[in-house]
């Protein structure tokens, strides 16, 4: 049985393995090794037998190839209506075949399945909304990724990403010390301007436990400071856990279900340890999907719910605006045309579309909807891990055209993107297509217009 030194079916569990993968520039040797990677047909058959249950079997069998899903897929639209980009074709030619052949496929097939699962689908689940039978190709692609991962057919960056979660319980190499120190640093940096500002760590029995995306402490620590300042202004009793602070899941994007379980369990453990009233997740879409929607099932929680009630950041914002904990200065509302990028993971798949509109009502004078929008909105173009995979850069950039045209049609030059993936995709879109737009999370926008209670101002 051929298993590569870097490319193999073993998940990454040690720093040593992680560093050797990282040292392989662009995954060059990794993908070379993949060409010779053995496929264990009986193992795939056994996985299919145990986990491909009646819902997905039915979906695969009842698809009539009517093609109604075609126009729902942004890849189909962006690729000149290529029939090979029709979602039903994409899933039937991969998972469908795998199922019909009972796992009897070869290396070339698995590489094709990997390329399809990661570069032709972002698991945005839009097709499921348009299929007359409700067949959700996104769900099935997510499942297919798991099978690919089990055989070692996974994009290099996501093998690394899932390893990061397994080793650090974060998508990046951030230790507990790094995280705690970043929190302290942000307080130091802003306490002059905001006397009394704190980022309480591991404070039990508070109202809110706040959790983030690892990219915030790593690259955008101001985001953490902004969250702290907004909680401070709103007078919230809150904390961050020293362990279990990371919400995201590249393991989910990789199809590494074991890694995904380990990651969410660290967050659930923090909930149990600190006993907060609820948890608030930062402005991230897939983090919400991983930890709030899918995570409880990975962790085998019978309720299907997180141990304490969980809010996406937009839900906290709207609550604070409604009850006056955050008050917007009407003169500082956004005057220019502005649009909102509905994240697939918390709008289509999380039902928070109304909340996004309500927030825009508070903060913008000229809000322009994209068309389509809300649960019908298209993926930003970089979801499902696609933003981070070098092998599929070209495919990703082609897919961005749909979002580009949607934004252009609104006439807005500012896009509110309360999701890290969307934020990245819109930024990259500007870099690739130069349409002259700006993009922002909600936190800095709110801070620029919120009324500051007099007693919180620094005394000169």
């Amino acid at each position, binding site marked *: 049985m051929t298993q590569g030194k870097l490319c193999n079916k073993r998940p990454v569990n040690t720093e040593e393995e992680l560093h050797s993968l990282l*040292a392989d520039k662009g995954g060059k040797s990794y993908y070379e090794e993949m060409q010779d990677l053995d496929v264990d047909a009986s193992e795939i058959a056994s996985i299919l037998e145990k986990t491909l249950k009646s819902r997905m079997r039915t979906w695969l069998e009842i698809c009539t190839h009517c093609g109604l899903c075609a126009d729902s897929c942004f890849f189909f639209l962006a690729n000149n209506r290529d029939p090979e980009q029709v979602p039903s074709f994409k899933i039937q030619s991969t998972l469908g075949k795998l199922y019909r052949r009972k796992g009897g496929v070869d290396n070339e097939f698995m590489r094709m399945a990997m390329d399809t699962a990661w570069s032709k689908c972002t698991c945005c689940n839009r097709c499921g909304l348009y299929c007359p039978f409700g067949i959700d190709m996104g769900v099935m692609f997510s499942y297919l990724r798991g099978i690919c991962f089990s055989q070692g057919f996974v994009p290099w960056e996501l093998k*690394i990403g899932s390893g990061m979660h397994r080793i650090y319980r974060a998508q990046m190499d951030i230790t507990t010390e790094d995280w705690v120190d970043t929190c302290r*640093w942000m307080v130091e940096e802003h306490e002059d301007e905001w006397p009394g500002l704190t980022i309480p760590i591991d404070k039990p029995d508070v109202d809110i436990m706040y959790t983030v995306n690892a*990219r915030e402490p790593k690259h955008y620590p*101001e985001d953490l400071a902004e969250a702290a300042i907004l909680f401070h202004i709103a007078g919230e009793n809150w904390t961050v856990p020293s362990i279990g602070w990371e919400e995201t899941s590249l393991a989910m994007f990789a199809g590494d279900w074991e890694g995904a379980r380990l990651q969410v369990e660290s967050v659930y453990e923090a909930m149990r340890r600190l006993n907060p009233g609820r948890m608030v997740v930062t402005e991230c879409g897939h983090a919400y999907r991983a930890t709030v929607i899918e995570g409880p099932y990975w962790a085998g929680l019978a309720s299907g719910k997180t141990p304490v009630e969980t809010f996406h950041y937009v839900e906290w914002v709207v609550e604070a605006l409604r009850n006056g904990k955050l008050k917007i200065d009407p003169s500082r509302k956004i005057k220019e045309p502005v649009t909102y990028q509905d994240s697939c993971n918390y709008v289509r798949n999380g039902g928070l579309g109304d909340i996004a509109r309500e927030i825009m009502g508070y903060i913008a004078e000229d809000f322009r909807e994209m068309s389509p929008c809300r649960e019908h909105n298209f993926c930003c173009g970089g979801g499902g891990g696609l933003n*981070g995979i070098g092998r599929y850069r070209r495919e990703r950039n082609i897919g961005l055209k749909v979002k580009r045209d949607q934004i252009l049609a609104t006439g807005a030059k500012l896009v509110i993107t309360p999701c890290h993936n969307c934020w*990245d995709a819109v930024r990259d879109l500007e870099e690739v297509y130069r349409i002259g737009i700006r993009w922002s999370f909600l936190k800095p926008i709110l801070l620029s217009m919120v009324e500051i209670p007099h007693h919180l101002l620094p005394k000169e």
Partner: protein
Amino acid sequence: MFGKVLFATTATPACDNAAHVAFNIAEKYHSELLIFHVLGLPSRGFSPFVRDARTGEEEYYDQDYIQWVEEELKNTYAEQLARYPNARIMTMAGTPHTEILRLARKEDVDFIVMGAHSRQERTGALGYRQAGSNMQRVARSARCPVLIVNRPCTTCLWYFSNIIFGTDFSRASYSAFLFASKLAREIGSRLYIFHALDLSAMHAGKIFSQEEIEDQIKAAKEKIHRIYLSQMQDYDNVEMEIWEGVPYMEILKYCREKNGDLIVMAHHTREIDPEEALLGSTVEQVVLRASCPVASVNRPDKIQEQRKTR
């Protein structure tokens, strides 16, 4: 005051003038010098790509790349390094201002030196109206003084002979004063305390009577005596001046008249979004136009710390 100096560089000609000053200061004060370059912006979500700060090319953030850039840095500053080898070259991928502030905190540096902006093509104030956003953010948030060098320093012969301290009487300005007065005392330079009465509203049609102006000048004079001169005790190598006009113009004219080789000010504007701060605050205008380095000091930490340890 200059025990550990962090020189944050884009490693492009935009920072050549800053490099000159950074190495000169390190040499004169026998500082430990950290040469820090933020390689590029982390890009593409979680991926290990970096958009190189100098070339704009996409690179893999790995050991090869880091070594290559560090080698380039050594070449860029080969001449200075030959003269002053007590320097450490450090790199990091990230958002420049974040990584500069993170390193300054981690290494507990006493002083940061940086260029005004990363644009290579222009160094004057005419072509654009704002200074670099990284510089603004570092200057605003750093715990230690930040020396910003934009144009070649024509008066920097001795580091420093004539220190111009510009004040708007804010709390942050007091920190700037602590630094300026301490520096003057330690190296025996002449300290000029300067305030400009802001008459820029005149352009908008608000007319001040001469009496009003004179009253305000008188009040400012009293403030300077009360807040600053009273702290100088026996140090008499100091003078003060109050002029009226557009503050950044006045301080630049005053600096030129006094052969200033260092301007010390506080940079405490809340507005850091370049879109919003199109005109720039006084300190940005001074930074862009001054022919000597500008030290931005907002916080007393590093200055008081040293006072305690002495």
